[in-house]
């Protein structure tokens, strides 16, 4: 069935005869005996991969297995920042492709993902911080990404509520200004990809948890789930925070430690914050949604855990740091806090592609920077599955790099990027 006509046309039809049921965004199917490809994890990465497998490689006999509802993991818990102003050339090139895909994603998916390229500021509070921002600005410019170092007067113009006066502890010396960076409606990315993958024949199975992976003579033969067994020769692990719990099913250890990342949201306010603001040393980032809420997050928790309960320590810390940057917000109220989990690799760079087990592929190591890579990760892994070759763009992120002592330098700047 061709992708539905203009979504806005469907909106009009809906307006005039609401009796007729609207088309379902994704259908529920019986679990087939066999699929060509099984993708574990119904988040933005898994669904994007299913979409690109169908759209660009005609592979449609695909099952996306999600243990809860689609987008229940990291995809529904992140603070929806999209940017490409990374440190290493490999990182910048990779994320720049992702931003380009995001720029036409609404059109591709026929679903407005509300990508708001409003500009992204990373503040520097020390000389060392300024040098790191300059390093990123220069690498970005050389790699064709719009980023530059700006000084307090321009920072104040872009973000009037920011306190650029001389703080004793956290003076704002400069900022890395990245105009293409911004925020997006993260759930809409999940729903858009799910819709277009479903329309092209992929089966999305919610409330279906993988409990085992069958391997014979070093090759994947099938998976066991809470709704029955599936035969397949290709399994992609796209479970991010839970990546290690899946990979142990094929007796492989990964260089990952799962740590909670918390965030919170305030009551809706009239618009006053037009850019995304991130502070390296204060480990805080903040943006204002189109509905007027401030969405705020910080660095990962101080200790590893799979618990998504959240802590008071996080709320206290982020409130103090946000008021350090925006003293006018002391009367703004927090409405809700939540947490996701991030699997942190040693070099803050993803781990994608082949593993020693034939047919078992991984799309993991996404730390605190996974959502912004969803389109390009899905696209490159779809190409890898279709061609059985690693695309150049993601060659630096192979699992074997740790054994080959060829880590990616993204951790070099050591400041936690968001």
């Amino acid at each position, binding site marked *: 069935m061709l992708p539905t006509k203009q979504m806005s046309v469907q909106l009009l039809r809906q307006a005039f005869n609401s009796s007729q049921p609207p088309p379902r965004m994704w259908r529920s199917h019986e679990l087939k005996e066999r699929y060509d490809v099984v993708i574990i994890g119904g988040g933005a990465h898994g669904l994007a991969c299913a979409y690109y497998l169908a759209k660009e490689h005609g592979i449609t006999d695909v099952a996306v297995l999600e243990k809860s509802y689609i987008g229940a993991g990291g995809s529904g818990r992140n603070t929806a920042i999209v940017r490409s102003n990374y440190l290493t050339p490999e990182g910048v090139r990779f994320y720049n492709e992702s931003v380009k895909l995001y720029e036409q994603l609404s059109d591709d998916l026929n679903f*407005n993902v509300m990508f708001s390229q409003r500009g992204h500021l990373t503040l520097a509070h020390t000389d060392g911080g300024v040098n790191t921002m300059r390093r990123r600005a220069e690498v970005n410019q050389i790699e064709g990404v719009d980023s530059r170092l700006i000084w307090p007067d321009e920072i104040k113009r872009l973000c009037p509520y920011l306190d650029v006066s001389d703080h004793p502890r956290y003076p704002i010396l400069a900022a890395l200004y990245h105009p293409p960076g911004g925020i997006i409606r993260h759930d809409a990315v999940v729903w858009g990809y799910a819709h277009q993958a479903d329309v092209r024949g992929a089966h999305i199975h919610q409330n279906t948890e993988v409990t085992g992976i069958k391997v014979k003579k070093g090759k994947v033969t099938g998976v066991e789930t809470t709704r029955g067994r599936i035969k397949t020769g290709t399994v992609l692990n796209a479970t991010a925070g839970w990546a290690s719990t899946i990979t142990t099913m094929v007796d492989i250890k990964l260089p990952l430690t799962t740590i909670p990342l918390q965030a919170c949201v305030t009551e809706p306010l009239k618009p006053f914050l037009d850019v995304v603001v991130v502070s390296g040393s204060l480990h805080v980032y903040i943006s204002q949604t189109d509905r007027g809420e401030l969405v705020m997050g910080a660095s990962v928790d101080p200790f590893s855990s799979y618990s998504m309960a959240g802590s008071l320590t996080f*709320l*206290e810390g982020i409130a103090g740091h946000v008021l350090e940057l925006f003293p006018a917000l*002391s009367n703004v109220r927090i409405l809700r806090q939540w947490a996701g989990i991030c699997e942190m690799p040693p070099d803050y760079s993803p781990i994608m592609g082949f593993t020693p087990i034939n047919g078992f592929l991984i799309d993991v190591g996404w730390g605190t920077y996974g959502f912004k890579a969803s389109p390009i990760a899905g696209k490159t892994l779809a190409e890898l599955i279709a061609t059985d070759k690693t695309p150049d763009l993601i060659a630096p992120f192979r699992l074997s790099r740790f054994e080959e002592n060829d880590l990616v330098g993204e951790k070099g700047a050591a400041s936690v990027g968001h």
Partner: protein
Amino acid sequence: MRTEQDTLITPNRLHPKEGEVIDRATTIRFTFDGVEYPAHPGDTVASALTAAGVQVLSRSFKYHRPRGLLCCSGHCPNCLVQIGDEPNVRACTRPVEAGMEVRAQNVWPSLKRDLLSLTQLGSRFMPVGFYYKTFIRPQKLWPLYEHTLRHVAGLGEVHIDTPLGEFDKQYLHTDVVIAGGGPAGISAALGAAEGGAQVLLFDENPTLGGHLRFTVPLDSSSTPEVSKDLPELLEAANQQPNIAVFTDTSVLGWYQDNWLCAVKGTRLFKIRTKSVVVATGAYEVPLIFDNNDLPGVMLGSAVQRLVHLFGVLPGKQVVIVTANEDGWDVAADLQSLGVNVGAIVDEREPNACSSPYRDGLVNAGVPVFYRHTILEAIGSNAVRGAKIARIDERAAISPTTTQSLNCNLIVISMGWTPATELAYMTGGKSEYNEECAKILPVSSPPGVYVVGRASGTHAVDSQIAEAHQIGSTAAAFAGSGEVNKLTAQSSGTLEPRRTSDRVCVPGNKKRFVCYCEDVTDEDVELAIAEGYDSIELLKRYSTISMGPCQGAMCSMNTIHLCARANDWTVQETGTTTARPPTTPVTLGALAGQNMEPVQTTPIHQWHLDHGAAMMVAGLWLRPNHYGDPAAEAMGVRERVGLIDVSPLGKLQLTGPGVPELLERIYTNRWENLRVGRVRYGVMCNDEGVVLNDGVCAHLNDETWYMTTTSTGATTIFEWLQWWLQSGWGEGIHLTDLTDVYSAFNLAGPQSRAVLEKLTERDLASKAFPYMRIRSAKIADVPCRLLRLGFTGELSYEVHCPSGYALHVWEALMEAGREFGIAPFGVEAQRILRLEKAHIIVGQDTDAMSDPLSANMAWAVKLDKPDFLGKPSLMRISDEGLKQLLVGFKMADPDVVPDEGLQIVEPDADGRLKIIGWVTSSRFSPTLAAAIGLCWLPPELASQDGAPFTIRIDGHLKEARVQHSAFYDPDGERLRM
């Protein structure tokens, strides 16, 4: 007393009543949207406005429909106002203050005539999730549309010049916390206190009593008056010394191991308790029908709050819509106040109603309509009538029986849903109870209990009895820690005050499920039909319960609608996750008093008094320069300078095991370091990454004195403690002396001449060679002297006990006056060390750099048996370096590349390829040249003088590799 003038200004104010919380003797004034209104101390903004007849308080988020009081208990969004520079204030709980400036939010041009409500005309094209289906193409137009969307959305305003308020925090420790001070809460507190426990009792209202403050006791005689239970409970609580009461205090959240957070105005409490009793009561559930959001449609408890607490009657002609005895309570209550109860509309069969007030009301001529419900609230800006009709068991409306009743107040009393966010945060489980149509808590982790309406118990006497026993159970658990048998939730005394599960009455206008986000029942159906069927997907797509009320008013109804549309049971439908905070809390309260630790050296004041520009280095504040860093650097080269290096990490290692430890943690060799000698060393982790560098001196036979970088001091101290406590600590003690000694580096050709004036110690190189340590009295103070060479000049680093710091510093400055001594800061030090090509760990190296690549191969002895990082460094040296840190000099001395710039090489088709980057660079006043350190490919870095290009502002500037130090390459000046 009510004066004539009063009745004009406040038509809805009743005569004084027993139990009201206002002080009628005093009248204060405040403004709402510029109009002045009277109020009494104790009034809330909402009660004062209602007294004056104001009904419309705000406009709804999406359609900008007029909104008035609904819950009057701070849970719904309808009374959100701006007060001064505080946005999103709940008018119904915020006490009035004289001179308050209250303004409506998100209205244009005004609350009365809000043109933004014209969006309703297009509501047909704005169903749930419409923004996902619009403005997809052309992409260019999206920012314009988004701009308008943003300016229509949002509620309160943040003023740019809002002052940072005064906030603080307090930790509390207790045996039992009671969250909620209603009858169940007070009773549980009494039970726990009588069990010998220390009890903290929290209640969000100004006074204890919960719903007893404004409701009619169920089983009393026909003339309702405020319950007699309350005074007894309050009296008992007052007598009990173990109970500390906190009113106006909301318990915001439960966190692991019974860690609670509560807020009272500008103070945040952080409470560690052994057990917690949740007595947070229940929310009254709204009914969904046409125009159910019209001002004048109010919940029964809201009307009773206004009447009994503030003596305000929101409407003279009332229609009561109910499904249980609550409606009849309110009717009797209003009837006794002389209000004209126009009708009681009860959806049940006549025999299902067991209200004790039924006969009284019927005899008083109040019309009763059984098996009826409300179809529509009639009116545009406020209620002027109610359309009702008969319904059959399948909730089908029989159109012929519709009739309209005149009224200006519609009371909704369809039942309650437990307020259990706090209970479920603890991991407590819930189950849907068919009998009372409520989702009730059925299990809680040890030390967590739920009582009263929150657990589903409705009758006051059952609440009191149960809660008292659970209170003593909680105390027992707090005392002994073992789980008492009675942890099962409320037993048989559960009196099934049933909540209606007919949540929605069909109609043809707009029926609101979620007041905050303007979500209608049609939106819910459409969303579920489109595939957003699970309760979590439905919430995220429709944004139901994501507004200011966080589900208090809409969760229960949404679950019923979702179950019905999916044909699931309520239990299968489930609930969304309960998350702190239970009520919104300000950033200021969460931040509390500003506590950002700052470390200063003992002579910090001297620096400020002498014009130092300070900089932040980790937690330290240090002098960056005293006005002219270049001159300061030249001063050290030509004469003598003094720098405060007190933040340097200083560790003492004692014991026979130290030599072997040094062998293991440093990359170079240590065992032949004789007493009095000092050696530079580099520390790596097992990945071979440079962690820290510094010197270590052999002070006397079993004492070593190690320095680390200032920002690395704490981490290295903890890192060393780990190695010592996990197997390598035999015969070693480690003590942090960082702050015991202040350290001043006296550097320059005249440094010896200066120091000789202050000590008898022979400072000549023969007696005190380079890289040696000596004890010496400097200006009568016992110090440690080290001859080091970070700046490249003859220099003596004076480590003196911190109490003598100012004395020694001033003595050195005084002794140096004749030699033209001047203080120098970090900036000058950076120039001096760069002229010597000395690296700074953390600036020239980063979290991936190894010592071999950082050109410190001379400090790495791979023939040592083992040391931290050796296997990785062996591998790196076998496989060859990927990049090398090396010195460079700019071809053009006037071009000083900023640190962080990239080193590039155009490839075949002119694209720039990054081959390295600049870590350090300065203009050297001594050499009149632009010098620096950078990372380069080894093949380029290994050719002394090789040219390469740095990209500066888009242009490629030439630089040349320089292997030798830029200044005194052979280090003669150090050894003078």
